[in-house]
């Protein structure tokens, strides 16, 4: 592991010189990690802002939102949102959140920053590819955001971009001419970036581990990033051609996703021979693993922080890693559960339903291991550990609604209702974001050299935890009544009585959003004025806590770290207290290592 293999030879690069090399086109995985984090931060606030506009419009459809015409004159004449502009915002909200927040922050940002350090490497295996990954992602972001500034605005087909709505061009409605093409190009570019990133993560993990860092001695979050990169490598490799084919249908006159005989806006479409189900298959073959690309790194980060806060190892880290692998594998054979009502052979619904239900088993084991590990621990409450505990609560709440949607029979009633929206927001959105928050409070001292304000952090936690439940639990009730999602207004006689509940959700969303401003303020204030961070403020055992905060450009200086233990040596008598660092050569009498 310590030899100069080809991969470890490429990771050496000279100390960066000048502002551009240090902070813009940097090869340093830490700078790239922070760049990903910054991009995700911009994307999450835009995405949240869009959700506010949508929530306000849903409950006061005819009231002007002051200044909205500045965003789009066509989409909001007299500051009142048109139904099509609602769908544009919905599409952009979903796309920004899924790709640029939930994929970028827990996986690309934290993974880039900490995976090399946690395995004792000087940098990623391919630093230039790494730089390219980020700037390609940034380009994808710019192309997507450009859709706001073109005359007909962003696309209206949702983040799932179902064909043929997404494939036939301008006839399909506003935003479907150039906006949808920009969307397709943006996501294709994003796929390239993610493929490069995933390859880099895999090569780094396999080739650059320090002496003594066996695979089983890697922290759980490193494992999660590794497993996630394997998932991402396969998932994005399918979405990329799907987006290319979609763009070809749109601009080159091909018919991959468009069958014959479609009459749209009074035009008989000049296409034939395509299959609309093909898009759905390709999209969801990526789309379902994507859920785990968001949630597994969060689960890994939370496990890492829990172990540290509980001051004891998990009941079994091997089982946790095994469960993550099982979930990663199963995620590839369940995509059809998004398509029960899409006209697939109805027998395939049964075939997709069973593995979906089976995913519950590793997910339950994970939860039980987390819960069982709290028993008899010395739990320290910090902002980071609160978000980690909140993650468990959200993971359970979002997970149990999966029981319903995994069954084709029940999906007949609940499909495309707010029940689905509540389900995936809790388990994929909120839970993953709790993982990001936990990671931020935990690693901020290491990344910036300053401590964050704990009082503001806890205030942020309470507002977000209670607020997220107030927003997303009622979504399930709406779904049970049969409230259809993706409606720009509730004009049906049937849905009008539900508007008070929608108002409650809007109030909760605005309040919870306001609490995020506390987080932003804390982030910016602490970055400059926070107290100086010691090397190891949380008394954590993994390698990133052996080097200065923030780490120097080459992480470990010229020293090659040597690892003697796994990162779970807590709750024992060590020379430094109740824990032993991974790099400490001391013998441990009662090593927790699982046999």
């Amino acid at each position: 592991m310590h030899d100069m293999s080809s991969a470890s030879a490429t990771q050496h690069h000279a100390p960066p010189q000048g502002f551009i090399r240090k902070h813009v086109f940097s090869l340093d995985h830490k700078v790239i990690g922070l760049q990903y984090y910054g991009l995700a931060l911009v994307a999450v606030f835009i995405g949240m802002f869009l959700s506010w506009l949508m929530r306000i419009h849903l409950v006061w459809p005819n009231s002007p939102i002051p200044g909205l015409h500045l965003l789009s004159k066509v989409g909001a004449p007299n500051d009142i949102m048109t139904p099509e502009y609602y769908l544009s915002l919905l599409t952009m909200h979903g796309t920004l959140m899924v790709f640029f927040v939930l994929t970028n922050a827990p996986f690309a940002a934290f993974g880039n920053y900490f995976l090399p350090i946690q395995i004792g490497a000087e940098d990623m295996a391919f630093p230039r590819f790494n730089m390219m990954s980020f700037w390609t992602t940034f380009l994808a972001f710019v192309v997507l955001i450009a859709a706001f500034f073109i005359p007909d605005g962003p696309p209206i087909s949702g983040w799932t971009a179902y064909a043929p709505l997404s494939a036939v061009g301008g006839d399909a409605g506003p935003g479907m001419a150039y906006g949808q093409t920009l969307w397709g190009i943006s996501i294709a570019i994003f796929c390239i970036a993610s493929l490069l990133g995933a390859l880099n993560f895999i090569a780094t993990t396999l080739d650059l581990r320090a002496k003594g860092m066996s695979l089983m001695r890697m922290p759980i979050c490193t494992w999660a990033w590794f497993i996630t990169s394997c998932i991402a490598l396969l998932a994005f490799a399918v979405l990329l051609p799907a987006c290319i084919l979609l763009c070809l249908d749109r601009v080159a006159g091909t018919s991959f996703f468009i069958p014959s005989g479609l009459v749209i806006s009074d035009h008989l479409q000049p296409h034939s021979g395509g299959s609309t189900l093909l898009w759905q298959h390709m999209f969801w073959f990526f789309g379902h693993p994507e859920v785990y690309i968001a949630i597994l790194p969060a689960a890994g980060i939370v496990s890492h922080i829990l172990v540290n806060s509980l001051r004891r190892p998990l009941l079994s880290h091997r089982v946790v890693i095994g469960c993550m692998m099982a979930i990663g594998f199963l995620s590839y054979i369940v995509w059809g559960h998004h398509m029960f009502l899409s006209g697939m052979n109805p027998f395939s619904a049964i075939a997709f339903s069973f593995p979906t239900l089976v995913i519950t088993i590793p997910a339950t084991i994970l939860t039980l291991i987390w819960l069982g590990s709290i028993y008899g621990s010395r739990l320290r409450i910090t902002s980071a550990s609160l978000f980690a505990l909140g993650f468990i609560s959200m993971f359970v709440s979002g997970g149990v609604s999966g029981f319903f949607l995994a069954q084709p029979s029940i999906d007949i009633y609940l499909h495309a209702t707010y029940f689905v929206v509540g389900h995936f927001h809790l388990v994929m959105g909120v839970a993953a974001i709790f993982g990001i928050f936990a990671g931020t409070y935990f690693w901020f001292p290491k990344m910036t050299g300053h401590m964050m304000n704990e009082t503001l952090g806890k205030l942020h936690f309470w507002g977000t935890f209670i607020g997220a439940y107030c927003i997303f639990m009622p979504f399930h009730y709406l779904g049970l009544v049969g409230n259809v999602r993706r409606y720009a207004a509730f004009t049906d006689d049937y849905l009008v009585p539900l508007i008070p509940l929608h108002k409650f959700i809007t109030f909760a969303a605005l309040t919870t959003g306001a609490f995020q401003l506390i987080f932003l303020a804390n982030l910016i204030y602490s970055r400059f004025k926070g107290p100086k961070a010691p090397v190891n403020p949380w008394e954590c055992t993994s390698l990133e806590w052996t080097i200065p905060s923030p780490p120097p450009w080459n992480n470990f200086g010229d020293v090659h770290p040597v690892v003697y233990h796994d990162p779970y040596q807590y709750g024992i008598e060590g020379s430094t207290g109740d824990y032993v660092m991974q790099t400490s050569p001391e013998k441990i009498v009662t090593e927790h290592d699982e046999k």
Partner: protein
Amino acid sequence: MGKLFAVIVILIAIGSAIPIVMHTWHQPVDISKDGHLIDEQLSDTMVEAGVSFLAAQFVLAFFVFRYADRKDPGKIKSFPGGAKVMVAAAVILVGTEVFALGIMGTRAWSGQYFTPPGQDALTIQSQAGQFAFYFRYPGPDGKLGPQHPDKIDEGAQNFFGLDPANDVDSRDDIVTAELGIPVDKEIRLLMHSKDVGHSFYVRELRVQQDYVPGLDLMVHFTAKTPGRYEIVCTQLCGLGHYNMKAYLNVMSQSDFDAWLKQKASEQ
């Protein structure tokens, strides 16, 4: 602060469960012959999911309450049995639950999708297009004439692209904007999309099925209660998606016959 966390988690868990237990928000009354299968499966699943949800949140709250910020931290203890107990519990309890749900849950599905409609079912074609549903009854000859997409002309009310001049079967077809059906009669609904993906959803019937462009599908159902019910689109189809609806009008057989006769005379 661990104690506060525990209290809040308990309050959230109970608060979330109250509207479910009290049936504050619930499905509309089922008017179909087979919808009860879905409802029963939904309530069985609700019990299992609800128990799992409450149990996990309570255990989380209790452990955090008990072990957070202990003044005298004492020795680390391990949960009796450790990981083995957890794995066994998850595999046996959840495995059984999942297996039961999986098997039981196929009943309603197979009733709709593996069982063909009866011989005497009434065939009606429905077509979804941006942003309206239309319905076509075969008329006295019992046959639906072929569709010609190039003949579709909304201005001339030729929504289905029929060509009665050349197609004999099309001449007596009856086209309506409302789905009128007789009560207690099985309906075989053919589904055709004119342009993009749509979906047919009648909550009271417990029926939902996508219209897939290029792929004509079929659902079948029997309504038991006369009345007017909303048919809504649930597949994002463009700017008018939120407003795309039609009505299902369930009538007695004699009312239906009179209604269809009147519609035929309006053609």
